[in-house]
């Protein structure tokens, strides 16, 4: 470890790994438990989590990951076990850290979408949307975005929510031994991605939602494609119900496992299906509507017990709710321009460049320097499939963000893992980790 004396960047602040029980102080342990469970230290001590003397230490610390298949990427869980019981857990992250927030400071606002879309690679369009909304807020054009662009964004984001939850259902099934489910979930997701490929040209990492609107109009025949999708998926969701929801083994593995209370969820900053599974009715689409979510009908699904089964059931049924929203969007989709008619933000159509000198200049300026964004600081949050995705941008008036920060829902939700795992069996650790549905790309950024 390197410590630079007299240099501001002292980096030796201790090990990231979990210390064995015999080496920690009682107050450290009790503070962490007490703060989250909202207990005093005396009450926390009564839970019997006190560290033991080295001779009596019957616990073992094992690593799950970072290459364990059920950790959904490169998540490393350090589990402290007494027999098969998990006493403590510490997620160690950072294995996928590639400095995307630093890189964002080098990329212009037009290029920024390519960066943020790679953070949560299971719901790239939500990330692009929140970035675009934040930039539009800074530019002061958020009220000028054409109707068609708004509805297209909603269509894509809802389809993306379906794809993301289908991916969750696939991996959740796989983690719990319903291996067939993995194939089914991927199959349905692939059909959604095929539609994305038709619209955006790519299955993932679209960079399609851009500041000022979307990159291109919907292709001819999109309505039929969406309707075909909406026809094929409900029957398959019913199959999932048959395969998993009603099965005693499935229920045994999930019900009452990894319970989180509403108070804990709020204290830990958990959002999305994890918060809703505890019974807290909070969905930004309903409570603080953006785009046109106030014009469509849908239900916010909440659980009752805050366990892994509730989280599974919420996601399964959110696919159905998203389909309900998509069906309304197909009905309501207006015609018109799909990006804002502001030459400083929107590149001119390719055909105009051959005719107009001014269009050529705008095109050149936008793709070399990029457009300048007025000075300011803004935070925008939307409801992604995993919870609140926030985008905090500071602009210094230049063509690239001075600072871009994405509030990744998985990163924050992952903190609830140690509290869900307290007292679980090690086999449940897989089920609980899976039910958080973390995407390590956005955890580490």
């Amino acid at each position, binding site marked *: 470890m390197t410590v630079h004396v007299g240099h501001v960047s002292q980096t030796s*602040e201790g090990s*990231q790994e979990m210390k064995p029980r015999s080496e920690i102080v009682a107050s450290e342990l009790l*503070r*962490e438990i007490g*703060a989250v469970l909202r207990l005093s230290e005396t009450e926390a001590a009564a839970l019997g989590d006190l560290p033991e003397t080295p001779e009596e230490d019957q616990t073992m610390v094992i690593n799950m990951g970072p290459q364990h298949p059920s950790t959904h990427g490169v998540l490393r869980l350090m589990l402290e076990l007494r027999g098969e019981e998990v006493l403590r857990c510490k997620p160690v992250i950072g294995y996928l850290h590639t400095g995307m927030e*630093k890189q964002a400071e080098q990329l212009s606002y037009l290029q920024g979408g390519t960066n943020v879309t790679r953070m949560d690679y299971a719901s790239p369009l939500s990330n692009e949307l929140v970035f675009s909304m934040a930039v539009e807020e800074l530019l002061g054009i958020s009220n000028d975005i054409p109707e068609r662009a708004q509805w297209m964004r909603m269509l894509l984001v809802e389809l993306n929510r379906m794809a993301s939850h289908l991916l969750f259902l696939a991996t959740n099934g796989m983690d719990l031994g319903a291996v067939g489910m993995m194939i089914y979930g991927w199959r349905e997701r692939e059909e959604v991605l095929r539609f994305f490929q038709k619209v955006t040209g790519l299955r993932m990492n679209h960079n399609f939602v851009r500041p000022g609107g979307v990159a291109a109009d919907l292709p001819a025949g999109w309505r039929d494609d969406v309707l075909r999708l909406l026809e094929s998926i409900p029957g398959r969701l019913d199959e999932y119900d048959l395969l998993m929801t009603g099965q005693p083994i499935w229920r045994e593995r999930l019900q009452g496992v990894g319970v989180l209370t509403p108070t804990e969820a709020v204290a830990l900053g958990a959002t999305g299906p994890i918060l809703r599974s505890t019974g807290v009715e909070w969905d930004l689409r309903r409570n603080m509507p953006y785009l046109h979510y106030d014009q469509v009908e849908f239900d916010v699904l909440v659980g009752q017990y805050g366990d892994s089964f509730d989280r599974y059931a919420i996601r399964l049924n959110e696919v159905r709710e998203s389909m309900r929203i998509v069906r309304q969007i197909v009905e309501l989709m207006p015609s018109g321009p799909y990006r804002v008619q502001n030459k400083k933000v929107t590149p001119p159509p390719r055909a105009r460049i051959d005719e107009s000198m001014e269009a050529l200049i705008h095109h050149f300026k936008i793709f070399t320097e990029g457009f300048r964004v007025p000075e300011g600081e803004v935070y925008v949050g939307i409801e992604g499939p995993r919870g609140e995705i926030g985008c905090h941008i500071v602009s210094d008036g230049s063509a690239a963000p001075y600072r871009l920060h994405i509030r990744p829902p998985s*990163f924050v939700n992952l903190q609830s893992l140690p509290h869900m795992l307290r007292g679980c069996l090690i086999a449940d650790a897989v089920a609980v980790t899976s039910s958080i549905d973390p995407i390590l790309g956005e955890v580490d950024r």
Partner: protein
Amino acid sequence: MTDDAEAPEERVPTRYGCPLTQRFGQDVIYVDRQRYLDVLKATADDGYEMCLDVTAVDYLKHLERWLPDGVERHRFEVVVNLLDMKAGRRLRVNVAVPEDDPSLPTLFDLHPGTEAMEREVFDMFGISFDGHPDPSRILMPEDWDGHPLRKDYATGEIPVQFKAGNAR
């Protein structure tokens, strides 16, 4: 809660005794480091029950940024995003943190969910949080030197053929 909305117009509007701005329709208060914990406690009592995000900005190259009158100007600014779920409102708390003593008290006891976020801020900016239960790095390796999101931390580059360094 001390909401001086009825204060004379020429005065800067305040909330919790701190200057309040509402640019882009977003409520932002600028808090002194000394009053940071007290104000955060007041906001929690006032209904801002969830702390969504803790992050920071290094204003090294943008020190002359716009700030309301009477707000201290420092190199770092820690940004805390709060959410009131009952009233459906957000509040952003900005705290200036000086370069020579980059530290703040931790919010862990108030909002345990800030544990990982504060570790990230420490990791990326070198701002330490006094009283944090686990002040280790979170994203970078534990023996890493420096704090990558500081503005004086070079991005570094690898030579790419046929592409001059993108000098922006």
